[in-house]
């Protein structure tokens, strides 16, 4: 019995791997009812009029792509569908490729043009300093967009001088940069902010939601799947719900089984 408690962890790894791959091979659909925090982000963007400006900061790198890129896609679908102007940027050097790809691909689907319907400002080093600089003047923080075009006079930025003029900002992040967006961005320059983060960071968002410093948040793949449901464009995140559910159930089974053996073997340490 006790041997089972000291089981080789590679056996557990194999079971997790099977729990992920089998539902991916034999796909089955699961309902994804949206939660209130995702709904409030969706409602905020949905309430914006045409030609409003939504800033999306893609502050993540390839390692968290699987969780955050579907969020970026869902948000972009929503914005472009509503003819909202999107301002993309990143404070992570490795986020540039992912951000550009997302904006370009989704923009193309809706016939949107760079500089006119959206602008991708690219990467700038300095994290919180960049945010403060943008709060004072976007054009000095980013004199050129990612493709080297001058930002001054760009149609996609018409009516925007600083962060104060942004109608809504979303920070997609796998790190603590969202705190800089709250402290140096939202608090100083007074704009509405939402966050999309990895599932493991989700609990960190609740205090900011309750203090109204965030209008809402999407946590992990589930958050992305909920947004996809709301936008009516089910994609990768929704497809990922089946394996995620199975793995969660498997981990619960591991815990229950581990405890069963623990009690059955006389609660030995």
């Amino acid at each position, binding site marked *: 019995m006790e041997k089972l408690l000291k089981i080789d*962890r590679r056996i557990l790894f194999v079971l997790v*791997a099977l729990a992920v791959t089998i539902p991916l091979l034999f796909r089955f659909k699961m309902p994804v009812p949206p*939660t209130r925090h995702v709904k409030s982000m969706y409602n905020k963007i949905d309430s914006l009029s045409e030609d409003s400006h939504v800033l999306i900061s893609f502050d993540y790198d390839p390692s968290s792509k699987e969780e955050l890129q579907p969020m970026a896609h869902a948000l972009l679908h929503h914005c472009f569908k509503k003819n909202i102007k999107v301002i993309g940027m990143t404070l992570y050097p490795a986020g540039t490729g992912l951000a550009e790809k997302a904006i370009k691909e989704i923009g193309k689907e809706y016939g949107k043009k760079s500089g006119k319907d959206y602008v991708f400002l690219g990467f700038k080093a300095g994290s919180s300093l960049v945010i403060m600089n943008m709060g004072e003047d976007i054009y000095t923080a980013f004199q050129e967009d990612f493709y080297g075009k001058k930002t001054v006079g760009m149609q996609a930025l018409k009516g925007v001088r600083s962060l104060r003029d942004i109608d809504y900002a979303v920070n997609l992040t796998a790190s603590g940069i969202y705190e800089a967006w709250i402290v140096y961005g939202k608090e100083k320059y007074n704009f509405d902010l939402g966050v999309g983060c990895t599932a493991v960071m989700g609990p960190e968002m609740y205090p900011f939601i309750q203090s109204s410093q965030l209008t809402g948040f999407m946590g992990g793949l*589930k958050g992305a799947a909920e947004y996809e449901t709301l936008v009516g464009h089910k994609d990768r995140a929704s497809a990922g719900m089946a394996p995620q559910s199975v793995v*969660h159930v498997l981990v619960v089974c591991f815990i229950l*089984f581990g405890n069963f053996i623990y009690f059955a073997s006389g609660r030995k340490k």
Partner: protein
Amino acid sequence: MNFLKRTVPMIIAFVMGVLMAFQYYVPHEASQNLLKVVTRWGMIISGFAMFIGAYSLFHMHWNRIKHKVSGWGYSIFMFFGAGIAIISGLYNGGELFWNDKQSGTMFDWIFDYVQVPAGATIFSILAFFMASAAYRTFRARNKEATILLISAIIVMLGRVPVGTMISQYIPIAADWIMTVPNLAAKRAILIGVSIGVIATSIKIIFGIEKAYLGGGD
């Protein structure tokens, strides 16, 4: 020497600390301009620091190869990877680096098909480690651990669609756990941390804490 290494940095820390703390309360344009200048300095320093970082990385790996330290072969791979990425970035699909960035270049290919899957793979290891750690350590040893265990199961199920399928109350219960007991504990930690942060900042500004300058006191 001690004056340059200790006194001057402490004077700078004091002046800038006090200035920036008061800047928060002064909305005047002069104060905003000061903030602008300081943030620009910060950005310039961050930019240059990247070279220092790159130098450190290359220097360390070069020495590992030179002294044949165990595992030096990996350092060759580091140079190989960095070299290919830098060359393909500068080559810019034939347009060279002084022109606008081209799309569909070799650099993009490396990013899409090497860096992205490699990063995602490492992140996914977390799921395996979590499952193994949960199996080995999550035990209902006492009353508190049992409460923790039950809450964990509810939250785990409530965070995926299968929770809704089992019972519509599971996500509600999970949300309650996250927003009430979890948040209360988190707030307590946050308040403690924030007070610690303020105290540390004041100690640095007034030169009481000097350990960050190196050496003892």
